[in-house]
């Protein structure tokens, strides 16, 4: 499948943006600049971008606690996200949500989600709305290998099939649910088969390879968009960081992280493919890298200078209207 040059440029820029955003966030957390709990997506960039390349603004995604990459891939503004992580009132969510709740409804981002498998039922609701409105939209939920063991995920998958809703379940296997291996936590040997047993096709991809994810996601999204009911994408790719920033990663085998970074890098793979096909030049890719680095640097500068929330804002935005008389 050939991909338009413009799409390739955008895909690379987005993957690089996610990578640099996450690495910088990691550094800022270590510097004590970002409060709270943060989960980094570094290494899994091709999943988010390979999927979201097929979506427009009115298709929806719902994400996970490891949500920065999905949000960036769906068009969330990086500067607003960085301000949010810093806890500024100028952040995308006015400093009310932080890392685990980045959202931008106008861009079809129904939120990162701090509850593992909180998202799939909500995504089925968005898909159901598309079905009722007959507008050809799809709703994508990202889930990890941890969330597929939650009952809510099972409920959502079954209900999407029952309602024939255009829901796409993207399962990102990064091999660990927190500190526990998929070999332990998923009781069967074949997660793809278990998922397909719900009654929809699942397309498998190497999550280190943008082109593989793009192709698999393209099939799944086309299936759902055409009114054939839900579909799934199953992408395997490890994360480069711990479950959370600061995780000592006692579960890693010796050399595992080095191997991931060296031999399973979506950005390296993308560049290697471009060198082979000559679709994008090294100069073009280098220029993107430089622009992204500058953008991330600026976003941190802006976040550090951005307004801080005030005590009066604590009780704002709980309701649209609350008519209590006291």
């Amino acid at each position, binding site marked *: 499948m050939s991909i338009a040059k413009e799409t390739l440029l955008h895909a690379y820029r987005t993957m690089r943006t996610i990578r640099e955003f996450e690495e910088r966030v990691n550094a800022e957390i270590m510097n004590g600049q970002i409060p709270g709990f943060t989960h980094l997506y570094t290494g899994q960039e091709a999943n988010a971008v390979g999927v979201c390349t097929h979506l427009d603004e009115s298709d929806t995604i719902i994400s996970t606690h490891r949500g920065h990459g999905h949000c960036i891939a769906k068009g969330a503004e990086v500067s607003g996200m960085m301000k949010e992580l810093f806890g500024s009132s100028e952040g995308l969510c006015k400093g009310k949500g932080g890392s685990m709740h980045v*959202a931008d409804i106008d861009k079809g981002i129904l939120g990162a989600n701090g509850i593992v498998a909180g998202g799939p039922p909500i995504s089925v609701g968005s898909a159901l709305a598309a079905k*009722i409105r007959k507008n050809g939209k799809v709703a994508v939920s990202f889930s990890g290998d941890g969330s597929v063991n939650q009952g809510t995920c099972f409920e959502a998958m079954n209900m999407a099939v029952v*309602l024939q809703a255009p829901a796409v379940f993207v399962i990102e296997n990064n091999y660990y649910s927190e500190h526990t291996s998929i070999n332990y936590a998923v009781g069967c040997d074949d997660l793809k088969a278990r998922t397909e047993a719900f009654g929809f096709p699942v397309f498998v991809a190497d999550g280190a390879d943008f082109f593989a994810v793009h192709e698999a996601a393209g099939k799944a999204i086309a299936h759902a968009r055409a009114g054939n009911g839900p579909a799934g994408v199953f992408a395997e790719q490890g994360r480069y960081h711990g479950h959370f920033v600061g995780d000592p990663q006692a579960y890693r085998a010796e050399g595992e992280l080095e191997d991931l970074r060296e031999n399973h890098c979506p950005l390296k793979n993308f560049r290697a493919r471009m060198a082979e096909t000559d679709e994008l030049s090294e100069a073009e890719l280098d220029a993107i890298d430089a622009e992204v680095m500058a953008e991330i640097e600026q976003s941190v500068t802006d976040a550090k200078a951005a307004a801080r929330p005030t005590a009066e804002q604590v009780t704002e*935005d709980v309701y*649209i*209207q609350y008519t209590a008389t006291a």
Partner: protein
Amino acid sequence: MPEKTMRDAINEALHQAMEQDESVFVIGEDVAGCSGSAGDVGAVGGVFGVTEGIYHRWPDRCIDTPISESAIVGAAAGAALVGMRPVAEIMFADFIGVCMDQIVNQMAKFRYMFGGKSRCPAVIRFSSGGGFSAAGQHSQAMYQVMTSFPGLKVVVPSNAYDAKGLMLSAIQDDDPVLFFEPKILYQETADVPDETYTIPFGEANFVREGDDVTVVAFGQMVPKAAAVIDALAEEGISCDLIDPRTTSPLDENAILESVEATGRLVIVDEAPPRCGLTADIAGLAADKAFSSLKAPIKQVSAPHSPTPFSPELEAAYLPDADKITAAIKATLA
């Protein structure tokens, strides 16, 4: 004015909302009924018949689901986030136990966590409360628990007229609304206009007006308290009876103004006593109307126990006329 049951009043509100706004849809277990079976799809209309007839008029907007409460609430929340106005049915309020996350961590918090940039106009309906010998898992009042979660609005109608107006308000509301229907009242009738009307949230109803004691009651306790108050009137005791109708928002002013006038307060609810509405409103009065009080505040509630099965046990469990009467008289002793 035509007399209608609470069941029919809510059903009429749903029909009228569906007619007026095509973004409204109903979803839940057996809200149509018979889906996929040899029977007539739509023949059930919910186990209590509240969604009766909707499927036959709007088959695309009356959606039977598997028994998957988390997915039902999640689907309502997600559809609402993208602009629909779902009315989901959770068959019994007790089943909040299997969809709590989708209610309290998801729909209740979207708007806040997303910095005020989302709206989630979903209504979740529940049959609620005791009186059916339905035992421990089909009898609870859960509205007092849900009232504690910011981001949710909580409605507890006590009669057919209010139920229709409150349901139409709930569907038009842009925030998530939990609507608890005391199932023991489904067949109780009241005068209910055929036309549409709304009842604002946070505005209590003075069911009776009097000078001696303020009685605040919720849901199915409102008609019980009204009967007690009517009987006491013959003994020369006159009471305000306040039905808050919504527990979130709560019409605090109505309660406080009444307490300031009477100096005596009795609160009646069918839920167990700890961290419930009787304690909540006692706390409110103690905090904000203490100097007006002439007697200790009395709370009438179920005991700290699950709801029992046997009719004799349940009758002893739920607040009744004797307990309400004794509490009112105690404030006058």
